Structure formats: C-alpha cells, structure tokens
C-alpha cells in the first residue's frame, strides 16, 4: 500500500472543500467548520488513491496559461471538426464506414500526459482509446477508429493531430 | 415567458426515450449500457433546462449527482464484461450464444 503524502492530502482537501461549498452555497461558520472536518477526513483516507506523482506540478503561470489555451482554443476546434464529420456520416445513412483498431505510437512520459492524451482521443467522436501498452519505454495506444484508412505512424498523425504537441507543453517537464 | 426552455427540455426528454429503444433492443450488454449512459446524459441536460425554466435550484443538485453517479454504473458494467464473465460465468456465456 502506498504512503499518504502531505501535498496529496492538501490537494484532495481543497477539491473536496470546494465541492462542499458548491453544494451548500452558504458561508455560515458552522457550515464551513463541518465541511472542513468532513473534507479533511475524506482527504486523509482517500488521497493515496488519487495522486501518485507531484501534486502541485501546475503551479507555474506560463504552464497554466498553456493548459488553459489548449482546453479553451485548440481542443474545441478539433472537437467541432470531428463532430461535424460524425454528423455528416450519421445523416448520410452510416455508409462507407471502415471500422478498425489501429496501434499508434506516442512519446509522452508522465502518467498525467498519457491519460490526458487518451481522454482527448476518446472525447473526439470517431476515435476511442481501447488500451495502452508500454513497449521499449514508449506508450502505444490501441485506438478504435471509425474510418481506419492507414496504419502506424500515418494513422497516429491523423488521429492525434495537434493535440499531442500541446499536451507535451503542458504536462511534461 | 420562457416557453423555449420548456420546449427544449421536452425535446431532450423525448430523445432520451428514443435512446431507450436501443436499450430494449440491443443485442449485447455493451449496447444496452451505452444507450443507458446516453439517456443519463440527456436527462441531465433536460434537468438543467427545466431548472432554468422553473427557477428552482434543486433540479441542478439532482443533475450534479446524476452526472457523478453515471460513471459508476458504466465502470461497473465495463469491469464485469472484462473480467467477471470469463472466470465465474464462462459456462453461462457459452450457453447464451
């Protein structure tokens, strides 16, 4: 079993307490104290399941701005493009589909970065990450793609697009 | 005065009912679970719109809990399909196919 670390507990406590404030929506002292006690207990018991690496890796204004730019400007662009393509496919009668599972390489190193890329791929309609394996120190993604036209590096370029570059800027050191 | 909001809320509810067709018909368990997940998301949207229409915040709290618990049943069925069927229920699965 992993050990509970102080930064992980603080991060979990802040998230729990914000959620408490959201649900109660009042700043009376008794509510604040009860929320703090409950959040601290929950954080002490569950922090070791949630946070394994550095807890405050994003405490850097330039990095935070990069991440915000990715989630507000770059990613929604890809999302709208993929959604319109999916709408065209569905309203055109679901013809000319070529479903297949392709294996694409990646070069991200931290766990956060890998999870973020897998979630970004899954959130764009038309591609779903099915499994990640690690070979030769590099992650390989098995992706179900609704129009599997190519394989290997070429498919990786088509699926990941601009997302991997921005994710590396935000999540890698 | 906010007739448009209630119209959209009813539309989302009707879409959730249409998604139920796949939940009843679906040949495999994964199909049913996907349809249930979509119905859950659509009901959350309908609840947001109805809360705005009626001006009562309690519906938003219910929608938050619905969105949080939607993940739990999906993960449960996913895990069951991945592991439980092979070890414990292998004979049942073979019989049904």
């Amino acid at each position, binding site marked *: 079993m992993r050990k509970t670390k102080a930064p992980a507990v603080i991060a979990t406590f802040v998230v729990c307490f914000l959620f408490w404030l959201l649900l109660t929506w009042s700043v009376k002292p008794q509510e604040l104290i009860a929320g703090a006690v409950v959040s601290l207990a929950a954080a002490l018991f569950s922090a070791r399941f949630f946070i394994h690496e550095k807890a405050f890796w994003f405490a850097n204004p330039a990095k935070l701005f990069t991440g915000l730019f990715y989630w507000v400007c770059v990613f929604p662009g890809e999302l709208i493009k993929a*959604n319109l393509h999916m709408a065209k496919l569905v309203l055109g009668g679901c013809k000319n589909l070529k479903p297949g*599972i392709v294996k694409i390489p990646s070069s991200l190193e931290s766990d956060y970065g890998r999870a973020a890329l897998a979630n970004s791929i899954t959130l*764009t309609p038309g591609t779903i990450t099915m499994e990640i394996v690690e070979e030769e120190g590099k992650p390989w993604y098995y992706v179900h793609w609704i129009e599997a036209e190519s394989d290997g590096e070429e498919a990786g370029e088509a699926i990941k697009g601009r997302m991997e570059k921005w994710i590396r800027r935000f999540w890698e050191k | 005065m906010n007739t448009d909001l209630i119209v959209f809320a009813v539309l989302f509810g009707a879409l959730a009912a249409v998604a139920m067709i796949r939940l009843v018909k679906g040949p*495999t368990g994964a199909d049913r679970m996907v349809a249930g997940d979509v119905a859950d998301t659509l009901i959350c949207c309908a609840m947001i719109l109805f809360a705005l229409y009626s001006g009562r915040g309690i519906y938003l709290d219910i*929608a*938050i809990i619905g*969105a949080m618990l939607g993940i739990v049943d999906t993960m449960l069925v996913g895990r069951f399909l991945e592991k439980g069927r092979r070890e414990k229920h292998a004979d049942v*699965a073979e019989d049904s196919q």
Partner: protein
Amino acid sequence: MPMWLKILSDVLIACGAFFALVGVLGILRMPDTFCRMQASTCVSTLGVIGVALGGLLHAIFAMGSASTAVKIAVICLLILITNPVGSHAIAKGAYKAGIRPETPMETDDLGRDNE
C-alpha cells in the same frame, strides 16, 4: 435580458439539441457495437457543451444567479471528465468479452497482437 443575448442562448441550445439528435440517431442506425459507442460521444461533447453554454447565458443575464451558473458549469465539466473513462472501460470490456462486429474489421491490431 437583451433580445440578441436571448437569441444567442437559444441558438446555442438548439445546436446542442442537433448534436444530441445526431448521437441518438447514430446509436439507432450504426451497424455494430463499437460504432454505436463512437456516435454516443457526440451527445456527451457538443450536445452537453451547447446546452451548458446556452444555460450559462440565461442564468447570468436573465436570472442573475451566481449559484445556478457555477452549478451548470460544474455539471458540464463533470460529464466531460467522466465520459471518456466510461467509454474506455466499456470498449475494452466489450472487446475482451468477445463482442465483435458481424463483418470482420479489416485492420485489427489488438486481435493480432494478442494471438
């Protein structure tokens, strides 16, 4: 609430309704299990984002209620964060449980590597 904001909010909600319709139609019409999952992603991305943005405009400018706005934003974020985890688990579980499309897939790297 100014008229153009009202119209903008309605247009955003209508966009969300359109993509929700596309997702539900895709679930009904797509040929196999994995393609249905792909279509269902439409509902939980642009469908939810459209409704949440339209609802945010309405909550801020017509109702003027901060708690409503924050709660709508949190619902949208929760669905966007949790949905990929769920579809990842279902897709992996369905493949491991032996569910395959009726017409075999042309490229199937996962099946090839597991043999």
